[in-house]
């Protein structure tokens, strides 16, 4: 099996558009559910996990959007395949470490994905482009309702849906959005924003969730509390906060252009220079520079190019995707060379940034 033939092509995945896509890359809602009579995956014996996996998978496949879905056990996937799925945000890094007795089901349009026997028996997510947390909630709510008639969920009146970890108890919901915030980072306001968001009981994390670095100025904002509030209250609250962050990011960009245009043009121009001309580049540096390239596109410095291009490059230059194009494992050194080759050839068609020439050699800012 070649996982790349099953998943959508990177350019198609990157081309999906949604509201406020300039700043909000994607929205996701995931629900944690467990079976009433089975021990949680982390405590269950392997034989039990294998049984539970089959039972859940077969029932998930009965629900409408999953009838023609892709499904697999984790033992059927190579390390590279698993990493590829992590890079596409279909499974967590924890899930990628699992083997027999765990697996996943992915809908044809890739909007719905169920991890089976991760930390909970079921972790189902709806993933949509742009700012659509409310739509993602509706989609996964509907799916969950359809599934509950087939599966006997662990639920009690007082505590709601029972989860392996008490942090997910009650609604079992995690609402999150992936944000691209170069303006707030460059204007050094990001820490203030993170602190303010934290005070509202929301978490700000890196690209791959818990404990990961915010590479490429991409931040994930999500709720932390799951008990004592309804799902729609949680979704609404997060949505409000996201709208405010979008506002702040837009203001930060406008202010930077007004007061520190040279600084911004310098960053973007250098990013373009390296991406278009390097012969060896790490994945981390690529992500950070692609973020600036994307900012340049947002600021109309690369006419004729769309943000989808940076999103595609972002996907295909990540380690597993890169190695898959060469059908095999590569050393980090060889990967860096391959990545640079790929970027150079793709940026051949992109003209140098069209920065307005102010005619001034110095900026007084006065």
């Amino acid at each position: 099996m070649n996982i790349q033939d099953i998943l959508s092509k990177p350019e198609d995945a990157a081309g999906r558009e949604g509201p406020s896509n300039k700043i909000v890359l994607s929205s996701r809602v995931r629900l944690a559910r467990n079976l009433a009579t089975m021990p949680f995956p982390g405590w269950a014996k392997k034989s039990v996990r294998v049984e539970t996996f089959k039972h859940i998978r077969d029932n998930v496949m009965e629900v409408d959007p999953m009838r023609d879905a892709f499904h697999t056990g984790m033992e059927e996937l190579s390390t590279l395949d698993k990493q590829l799925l992590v890079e596409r945000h279909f499974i967590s890094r924890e899930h990628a470490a699992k083997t027999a007795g765990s697996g996943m089901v992915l809908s044809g349009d890739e909007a719905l994905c169920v991890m089976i026997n991760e930390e909970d028996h079921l972790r189902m997510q709806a993933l949509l482009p742009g700012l659509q947390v409310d739509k993602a909630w509706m989609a996964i709510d509907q799916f969950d309702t359809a599934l509950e008639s087939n599966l006997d969920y662990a639920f009690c009146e007082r505590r709601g849906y029972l989860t392996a970890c008490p942090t997910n108890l009650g609604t079992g919901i995690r609402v999150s959005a992936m944000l691209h915030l170069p303006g707030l980072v460059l204007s050094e306001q990001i820490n203030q924003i993170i602190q303010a968001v934290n005070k509202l009981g929301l978490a700000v994390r890196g690209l791959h969730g818990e404990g990961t670095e915010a590479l490429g100025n991409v931040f994930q904002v999500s709720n932390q509390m799951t008990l004592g509030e309804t799902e729609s209250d949680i979704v609404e609250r997060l949505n409000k906060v996201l709208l405010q962050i979008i506002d702040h990011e837009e203001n930060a960009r406008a202010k930077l252009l007004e007061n520190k245009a040279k600084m911004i043009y310098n960053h973007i121009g250098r990013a373009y220079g390296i991406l278009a001309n390097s012969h060896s580049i790490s994945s981390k540096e690529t992500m950070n520079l692609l973020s600036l390239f994307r900012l340049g596109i947002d600021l109309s410095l690369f006419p004729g190019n769309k943000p989808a291009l940076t999103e595609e490059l972002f996907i295909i230059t990540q380690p597993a995707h890169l190695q898959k194009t060469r059908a095999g494992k590569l050393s980090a050194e060889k990967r860096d060379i391959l990545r640079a080759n790929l970027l150079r050839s793709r940026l051949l068609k992109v003209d140098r940034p069209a920065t307005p020439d102010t005619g001034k050699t110095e900026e007084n800012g006065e």
Partner: protein
Amino acid sequence: MLCDICKEKEATVHLTQMVEGKTKKIDLCESCSKAKGVDDPTGFSLADLLLGLGASQEMEESGSTTGKCPKCGFSQTDFKKTGRLGCPDCYDHFTEGVESLLKSMHKGTRHVGKAPAVWQQTKVYVDRLHSLQSKLDKAVAKEDYEKAAQLRDEISRVKSEYSESTIS
């Protein structure tokens, strides 16, 4: 003082946070604090840390939650190690510890969100039956046998309606 996570190295990073009027403290060594992202404000959330450590302490302090879950054999020590419970029944067995944990973790300790439809139907039925039964008891106490007879018929009607709806 040893690090709360690795329990090997000397703790040099000390964190304190007030949660629901209770002081929570965590002491970490340098490498664990880095691993947990404490030095990096973007990746750091005290709640995550408190969960694995403070949480299990709390369960211990609340006493009475000793022994193993009768359903799955999970113990407090296991919770301390993993920060996860063994099975849905653990929530009933470790009630007290879990309750105080939830207070510091969530907005409330009662679920107010979605419920499975089957469960909601049952709840409506049970509530209705309870209220009819208490009306019947009152009627009997007042020796209002005419009303009591009506209520008794109503109860059997509700019961048969419910059993029909669940079979279909």
